[in-house]
């Protein structure tokens, strides 16, 4: 199926390449910092792909959602 000039297959292939690159970078960081938590490393690498204000927006959104869950 075509979507904005690309197919879902194209975008799935792109997503897989991105995930492979991400995994390789996580492994590299963990080699240098074996005590680091892989989840923290992965989430940080993902956030670093976003602009700073978008990172803050996500953090505030999740922080507010967590507060609502506790209420």
């Amino acid at each position: 199926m075509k979507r904005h000039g690309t197919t879902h297959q194209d975008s799935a292939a792109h997503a897989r390449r991105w995930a492979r690159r991400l995994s390789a970078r996580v492994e590299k960081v963990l080699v240098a910092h074996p005590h680091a938590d892989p989840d923290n490393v992965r989430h940080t690498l993902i956030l670093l792909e976003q602009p700073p204000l978008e990172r803050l927006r996500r953090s505030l959104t999740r922080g507010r959602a967590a507060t609502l869950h506790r209420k």
Partner: protein
Amino acid sequence: MAAPQPFTESEIRLLCALLRHKVKFMVVGLSAATLQGAPVVTQDVDLWFEKLGDPIIARALQEVGAAYVPPSHLNPPMLAGPGAELFDIVLRMDGLGTFADEARNCIRIPLGRHRLKVLRLDRILASKRAANRPKDQLAIPVLEDALAVTQASRARQKRAQRTRRASQK
């Protein structure tokens, strides 16, 4: 469609009024850490002012219909008015140098025509280690890991730049 910003219009107006009046302040705490990629959640944005009693702060806040409320018996100092709820005032930062010392090495994030000063991730970690409250103890390992990643990413970018420059020669 533009991505939604973390700040509402009134919050941006408030920050820009402070920046326009050249009030000396910076973003600190976990919100400053998230701006630099740390995967932590927060509910507010902590602001550290060099001189809280500076009349320029009151003038800047007045311009957007907000006000500085000094500490009282039960309440810490706070900002009140449109766009102020998100921001908390930080009175002291444990384990750090003076405001001027930290400001010299802070990072700057573009906000409209202005640049917002943000305490560096390694300095946030130093303040959390010094404060060492139960909530800081939870954040410290995540900040340590985020710092390791950001330093590795910076080194990677530098290597890539060097390679590009070498190939252009």
